[in-house]
């Protein structure tokens, strides 16, 4: 037997860990996860920073909407780090703004989809029976619709504005969350503490919010993180087709779309925005996957 010691050992610290803390620790132990997190943080800082500065009227390095036809279609140079587009606008500045849009789209679309998905899934999973069957069959039907066709249809009717797009994307992506949440609820509903709460006569809403939902929060959070790059990629695709955010507002997708006719001469107009989309999405996917591993692994 080891002698009693007052200096904390590793065993001591893990005893006092919260579940969140444990997940966080495992997450940080993964090098890929750390790199992704750094990228995400940079992305967020750039996005928020640019938005705030832009709201205050400061632009760096250039005003993204400032056109200068004499400077159009310049390749990357020390003056214009990523070149200029067909209207002479600085690509780098436009991309910084694009970051804000992408982050906004990612967060709001996920918020919408999470809101709907959690509610539907919770109701189906908690009440079960006929409610569950009806809701889930409807979800099954909805999943059959390729989301892009739905989005295009809605955009055709409502018109492409940033808010419309964000809400529409959220409206077509909640089905996965709903299924997940339903599954979690079905399992957690059968646990002893939930049964106990019901026996004690607790109201359904209370049980859902105080007992079940917190225990399902890890997978829900993972889904949210993984939903952000989905939304960003969808918005980029929409913008590329011309149905996303309209110019002159800059998103990574519409920088590429704007310059479709010049793409042969101006390779920088497609390479950099595309890379940005790719790297941002990859970072979120890797982080989300690492989070899922951290939440699931048994130690």
């Amino acid at each position, binding site marked *: 037997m080891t002698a009693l010691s007052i200096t904390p050992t590793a065993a001591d610290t893990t005893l006092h860990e919260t579940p969140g803390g444990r997940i966080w620790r495992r997450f940080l132990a993964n090098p890929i996860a750390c790199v992704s997190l750094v990228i995400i943080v940079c992305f967020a800082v750039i996005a928020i920073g640019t938005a705030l500065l832009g709201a205050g009227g400061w632009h760096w390095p250039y005003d993204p909407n400032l056109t200068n036809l004499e400077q159009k279609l310049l390749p990357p140079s020390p003056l214009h780090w990523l070149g200029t587009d067909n209207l002479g606008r600085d690509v780098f500045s436009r991309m910084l703004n694009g970051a804000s849009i992408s982050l906004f789209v990612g967060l709001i679309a996920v918020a919408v989809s999470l809101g709907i998905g959690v509610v539907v899934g919770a109701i189906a999973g908690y009440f079960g029976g006929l409610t569950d069957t009806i809701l889930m069959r409807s979800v099954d039907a909805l*999943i*059959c*619709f390729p989301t892009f066709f739905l989005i295009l249809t809605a955009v055709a009717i409502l018109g492409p504005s940033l808010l419309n797009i964000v809400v529409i994307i959220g409206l077509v992506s909640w089905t996965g969350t709903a299924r997940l949440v339903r599954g979690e609820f079905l399992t957690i509903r059968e646990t002893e503490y939930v049964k106990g709460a019901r026996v004690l006569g607790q109201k359904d809403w209370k049980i859902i919010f105080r007992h079940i939902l917190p225990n399902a929060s890890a997978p829900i959070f993972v889904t949210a993180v993984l939903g952000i790059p989905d939304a960003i990629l969808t918005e980029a695709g929409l913008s590329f087709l011309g149905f996303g955010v309209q110019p002159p507002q800059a998103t990574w997708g519409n920088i590429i779309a704007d310059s479709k006719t010049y793409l042969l001469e101006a390779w920088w107009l497609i390479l950099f925005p595309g890379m940005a989309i790719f790297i941002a999405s990859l970072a979120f996917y890797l982080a989300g996957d690492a989070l899922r591993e951290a939440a699931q692994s048994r130690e």
Partner: protein
Amino acid sequence: MSAFIIRRLCLTVVLLFIISIISFFIVTLTPGSPYPWGELNPKISAEVKANFRKKFHLDRPLPEQYAFIMRDLFHGDLRSVKDDRPVLSRIIERLPATLALNFTAMLISLSFGTLLGVYAARHAGHWQDILGSFVAFLFIALPGFWISYLIVIGLVKAFGVPILGTQSYGIDFPNALAAGLDRIWHLLIPAIVLSIGGIASQSRYLRASMIETLREDYIRTARSKGLSEEVTLYKHALRNSIRPLITGIGMLLPGLLSGSVIIENIFAYPGLGRLGYEAVLERDYPTLVALNFVVAALVLLGNLLSDLLYAIVDKRVRLE
């Protein structure tokens, strides 16, 4: 087996019905003008608007509208706003191209996804597995339009290799085989780009499933029989691991069709995705309603087929 088929068919019919309702509601319930030319356009007289409303039954109550639209659709009376041709015939025109593209993409996704998944599962926990996961996420994060554009620029503009459309124009092919190969060539690149995301997702499903299967006792039995690791993996383990792959098809098919909107656009491939794009530009709502219905129905049928095929492979499913 027949009980299973009947049950699946009934479910399919029910879902098809729900799909039709949803398709109908998307357009009808979305706030906004039903007129393709905008509500307040002064050039359009009230009479034209009234005719339009009559033609599309917009004055009747909703359930009747639904019934009318369904009937019109299948009788070929639902006509496109653009050229007044029956919507259904426009769709059927493009259907073979879309089916060819998506079916090919699905095959590529399933086969390469399986290979990648088995590779990762076999070396689970080691660097090969981590590499496999990383590659999978690389694929998922890759914006389809980006990679497509780079390919088009590279091959078409830089090297002059024709890949747009379904066939090379302006070239006389000596025989049907050459023409056929040309068509396959034009199909292949878009299908490969389309399948990239699918390869990734299917490989993840298979890897997880395979790792579970490899823990089973009968895998130990297979090894104790002196079977090589390849035979153990591909004969004994794989057949027991494909269930998630089949359910994965349920998510794969809508994903492929979604992706084909952009891919068909870039590669000038005349399929349903392209039709959707054009319909949005023209605000051709009848086409859009029908299109949503048709693609969803295609997904549903695809699921039905894959479930039936799976039931042939694994008899236990039929007893469920």
